[in-house]
């Protein structure tokens, strides 16, 4: 298999497999959660909690300034990730081909800036994992795996765009493959939080809302 064949496989069957595994896996993960059910609240509630739950999904994204040491790099990374994934022009074309929806991409220099920023932020979080006592004691091997599969698409994408590495076609193929690896790992690691955070925030927000707590 040469570079071109590899690229074609990544763009075709590879992508299809990755999407199937990701969607099926995440569906299973959500089913695993929801199927456990939630006990009915029998105490007299102050509100139904539904709107508090929905609000919480957004509200817990607001940074807590008190924890800036802990969160600054994570915020930079998450914002960078969303910008690079959804506003790099070739990515917008990919989504147009897949979903038929098109939105304007952003200039390359902005994407480049956020790519470098995200890579730096990720490296900082990795160092933090090693040196911060609380993170260190919590970290499991799979957390490093999650970090690696998230890091690879950034690096391969950056290299492909700047024509670094042995061959552009090969780099592009590796970039797409790394994204597919990330998609496959999404339901199997802590990366699942990308989806399940909606549930956890909703559950907590609604139960606090029932008690009349503004959280």
């Amino acid at each position, binding site marked *: 298999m040469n570079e071109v064949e590899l690229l074609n496989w990544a763009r075709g069957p590879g992508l299809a497999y990755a999407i199937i595994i990701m969607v099926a896996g995440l569906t*299973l*993960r959500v089913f*695993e*959660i*929801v*199927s*456990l*059910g*939630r*006990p009915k*609240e*029998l*105490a*007299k509630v*102050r509100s139904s909690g539904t709107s508090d739950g929905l609000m*919480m*999904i957004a509200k*817990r*994204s607001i940074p*807590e300034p*008190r*924890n800036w040491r*802990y*969160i600054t790099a*994570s915020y930079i990374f998450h914002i960078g990730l969303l910008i690079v994934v959804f506003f790099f022009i070739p990515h917008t074309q990919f989504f147009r081909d897949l979903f038929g929806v098109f939105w304007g991409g952003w200039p390359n220099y902005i994407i480049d800036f956020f790519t470098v920023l995200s890579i730096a932020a990720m490296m900082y979080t990795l160092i933090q994992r090693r040196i*911060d*006592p*609380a*993170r*260190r*004691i*919590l*970290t*499991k091997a799979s*957390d490093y795996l999650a970090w690696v599969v998230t890091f690879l698409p950034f690096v391969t994408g950056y290299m492909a765009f700047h024509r670094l590495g042995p061959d552009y076609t090969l780099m592009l193929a590796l970039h797409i493959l790394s994204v597919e690896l990330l998609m496959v790992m999404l339901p*199997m690691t*802590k990366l*699942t*939080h990308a989806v*399940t*955070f909606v*549930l*956890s*925030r*909703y*559950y*907590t*927000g609604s*139960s*606090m809302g029932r*008690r*009349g*707590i*503004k*959280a």
Partner: protein
Amino acid sequence: MSTSFEQGVNTLKRLIDAPIASYFSSCTNCGICSQACVFATETEDPKYTPIRRLEPMRRVWEQEYTVVGKLKKLIGLSKKLTMQDFEDNVHLTFESCTTCGRCSMMCPSGNDIVYMIRKMREALTAAGLAPKELQGAAVRTIEKGSVMGFPMNTLESMIEAAEEETGIKINVDEPNVDYLVLLSSAEVMQFNEIIGALAQIFEQAGVTWTFSTKAHEAGNPGMHMGASEIEAIMINNIVEAAEELNIKKVISPECGHAYMAIRWEGPNVIGRPYPFEVYHIIEVLDELREQGRLKTSGTEDARLTFHDPCQAARRGGVNQPQRNLLNMVTTNFIEMKHNRACNWCCGGGGGVNTMEKTEPMRLKIFHRKRTQIEELDVDTVVTMCATCRNTLEEGMEENNMDIEVLGLTEVVANHLLKEKES
């Protein structure tokens, strides 16, 4: 109640629900909860990181309720839970956690960590590992209806004293009145001026109320133990008392965990909604204030602050009434830097201050509260929980802080408009 390791594991299996599964799925091991917990910040020991305390529960969840975990178990990649894991967890779940729930306010994934701690305690109790002090309190409450073992006649003699002092008749077992009033053991033992204070406030507001010989305390060690069956016995006593007396409103005392037990957990542990409503005493006073039935005169002019008790404010949702009342009778009320739902824990709740061996730790972590209070340069700290009050007094005495600690009901009662003035 028979206990065993298997029962502990089975309890975890039974209690893991959709919210808990979502919490473990969403936790990214980011460690921010370590910044929320007073035990973690003051000891700087990472083992007190809140989510880490739930490792046994996480393992049961993964092995029993996820496909990945089941596969890992099949090929021998996952560690089986042992009794040792439970034993090691007692310190983390009972002795160094007040279930204050500040961690639940800070988690970016929205994980309600303390919701899981409550259930982890239930599993440890099922495994026979509940701290003996809590077991003792539970036995006393079942036998005598009082956490500290005060029989009804102790309270009756206090009622008589309060009647003599105030000249107001205080009802016991009076049916068809507005409110059934419950106390906490700490109030009966140390802060019994509350009885006269309530009598005066209610007399002035035209509220009818009674104590019940069937249920005179709301304290519930069953909740601290995480023993829902024991918790239910105590709740049922109160429900029966209110039903027999045909009372539609029950008042929870100035005690955070009692409020949590009777107001929020109660109907869920007995498995049916109440035929009455439950209010924290401070909610009742604030309602009377709003209706213009609480008349005060004069103000407290000392610099004072308010300590929000975790179970009433952060977890129970009573955050505004105490401020309305303070603004009514004080002129120099200053908020702590972190307040309401984000207040720092006193360090004594959740049964922690009943365990003698926790004393050195309690005094160490009090540093946080001390800093919070000292930076305000106040003369008085007001609160609405007897356990907080005790813990604050203990910590201040140890640190030679010359600051008075008061219960809010008492502060209000001190400024009640006397009849001759009105």
